[in-house]
């Protein structure tokens, strides 16, 4: 085994550094629109050099590079090192664009990809519905063709749309063939959210978190979208929504979030002085065993992706592992913060005078670690996926 990236990659790293040194030097004075323009300008240069939008064809403004997770990783590392912006984040780049590249019409690609790359279009996901939970195929939102057959008329409700308040567009599943079997009769549509008949409402979470950056609920009352905005065949929306993402998404850093959180937990134990207690030391090290297993498994996944090898069932286990470890960390953190557990963390928008944000901020993680179970028993779905796809056990007698 070898955790170095090899000479070729290190050479590539030097190119990137050289590029970043002169291409990324925003004047500290830059603000607002000017900064925005500078960043847009930079992204164009970086794309021309093949550092950004590697999976997107040139004709749509991408750099159309061959899949290479090592290079992608080196790019990430160097951009982070230089604090230089990479592609826009969010559903648009992660889901809409790959889906359009896979299943969209030329018109749709031309219409949406560039604006999404530029961040002018912000996409919300319209899969979950109240009552659907893990059973995503149980779509009830109705789509009917207009009399002239040029538009889809949509009525219904979607839920758990992240950043929904900020979204300009939505990609969604609607039921267009009410009589067809569950998984058929669903169509994948794109929708402009800035039109009459669209109502949105934020969902306040148990952490108290609320506002533009939290989850949203959408209500559709005879909302229209052109038939030409339908992705894939009518009734084949379920398959379209399964479109898998590009390989370069495998990243060494995929487990860093957990690792950093564990580091913070150790810091907390140090600040509180409790790290000297044998009980706490043992519990920390016990958790770290799982954190390390998770971290090096992410290396393994990355390595397999780089070599185009199949990593096997471990790839199906990462999410559940993360949930379970987060749970253990939450329980230990709750012990460590002691009476600070009385104090509402700032993110929870507690009322009354603001206390300085001390160890009580862990209450966010302690509650937030439950967020992984959002979308109805997600963990039990994960367990089924591991058992069925990973271990080849029979499907539920139930299902």
């Amino acid at each position, binding site marked *: 085994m070898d955790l170095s990236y090899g000479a070729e990659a290190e050479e590539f790293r030097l190119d990137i550094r050289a590029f970043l040194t002169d291409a990324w030097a925003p004047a500290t004075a830059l603000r607002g629109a000017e900064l925005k323009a500078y960043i847009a300008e930079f992204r164009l240069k970086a794309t021309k050099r093949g550092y950004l939008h590697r999976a997107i064809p040139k004709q749509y403004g991408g750099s159309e590079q061959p899949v290479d997770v090592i290079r992608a990783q080196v790019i990430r590392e160097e951009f982070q090192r230089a604090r230089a912006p990479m592609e826009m984040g969010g559903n648009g780049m992660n889901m809409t664009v790959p889906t359009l590249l896979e299943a969209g019409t030329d018109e749709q690609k031309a219409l949406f990809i560039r604006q999404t790359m530029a961040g002018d279009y912000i996409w919300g996901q319209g899969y979950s519905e109240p009552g659907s939970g893990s059973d995503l195929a149980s779509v009830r939102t109705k789509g009917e063709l207009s009399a002239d057959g040029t538009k889809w008329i949509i009525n219904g409700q979607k839920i758990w749309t992240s950043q929904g308040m900020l979204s300009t567009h939505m990609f969604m599943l609607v039921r267009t063939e009410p009589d067809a079997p569950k998984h058929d009769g669903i169509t994948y549509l794109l929708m402009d959210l800035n039109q009459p008949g669209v109502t949105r409402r934020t969902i306040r979470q148990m952490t108290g978190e609320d506002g533009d950056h939290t989850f949203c609920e959408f209500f559709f009352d005879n909302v229209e979208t052109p038939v030409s905005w339908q992705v894939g065949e009518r009734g084949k929306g379920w398959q379209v929504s399964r479109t898998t993402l590009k390989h370069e998404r495998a990243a060494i850093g995929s487990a860093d979030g957990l690792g950093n959180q564990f580091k913070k937990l150790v810091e907390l134990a140090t600040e509180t002085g409790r790290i000297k207690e044998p*009980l706490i030391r043992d519990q920390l090290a016990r958790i770290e065993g799982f954190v390390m297993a998770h971290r090096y498994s992410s290396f393994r996944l990355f390595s397999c992706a780089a070599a185009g090898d199949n990593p096997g069932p471990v790839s199906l286990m990462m999410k559940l592992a993360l949930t379970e470890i987060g749970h253990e960390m939450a329980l230990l953190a709750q012990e460590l913060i002691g009476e*600070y557990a*009385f*104090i*509402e963390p700032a993110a929870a928008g*507690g009322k009354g005078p603001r206390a300085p944000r001390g160890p009580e901020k862990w209450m966010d993680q302690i509650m937030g670690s439950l967020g992984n*179970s*959002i979308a109805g028993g997600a963990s039990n779905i994960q367990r089924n996926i591991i058992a069925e796809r990973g271990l080849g056990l029979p499907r539920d007698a139930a299902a």
Partner: protein
Amino acid sequence: MRFHLTEEQSAIQDAIRGTLADCWPMERLHAFADGDTDFDQTSWDALMRLGLGSILLPDSGMGLLDAALVCEVAGEAAAPGPLIGQLLAVAAVSNASNEAAKAHLDALASGAAVATLAFTADDPAEAELMVPCARAAQYFLIGSRIGGISLVEAGEGVTITPLPSTDRSRPVSKVKFSGAKTLQLFAPEDPMTAKLYSAALVLVAADALGGAQKCTDMSVAYAKEREQFGQAIGAFQGLKHQLAHMALDVEPARALVWYAAYAHDADLPDAARAAAMAKAHLCDVYVRSTRAAVAAHGGIGYTWEYGLNYWFRRAAFDRAWLGSPSMQRARAAALAGW
């Protein structure tokens, strides 16, 4: 030999349950949670009208077990107000020989005057104490190994700094006592000082029991009504077994709370240790139950509106209050002479 509730005890619990269902529905809880006060007069009066304030009067014919049964239902309903402080203030004042303090007994027993609990391991004269419902309290029952138990009137010498609180039903404040009017009730070495501390632990355990039971009940009810993949999710063995384990965590623990309260009332030699064990065990159960409940509900359980989070927050409070489970287990180990 009798080691389960009498019909009368169950009837009293049902009465309190009914009262709270009327005066403390989810809408009230939601409104209170986003409000700016730390006390709700209506529900307080309704509970006091049932005579709860006088349960721990020496001549009430009731004891800590009955007090625990009350706190259990309060925990179930996520009831606001310093119920535990009130019950113990009455117990303390009525058992003390301080006549000046006795003058306040009627007001306390009737609930006309509100008392809250301010126990600490440190010197209360030095420390800033974390106190629930402090703004509403006319009296503070202060307890510490250094100072014993005393009753302090709100007002001069009592500085209250409200804090944004995790527990939205029992908001806490930082309270500093310096030069406040203090009525000494029990000296540090007086056995009553230790007994009142143990009694507090048992009542917190009872609150935790009620809350954990509520989370289990909500999860079971949801699993019966909520359908997915064409059937009630409660028919899926995965969730079913998780719910069975929630019940397995809570239901047997009930008898532990009963025993700790009984041991206190009967002055059994292991009363103090049983109280510590009950506090530690039930607060762990409560935290586990609230987490399991959110997981069992999925998305909706994570929303503020659904309300599960109020019990999650009470569990966080109960766990940290008066000594964490690991601290109480360390005490229990020492008390066992390990």
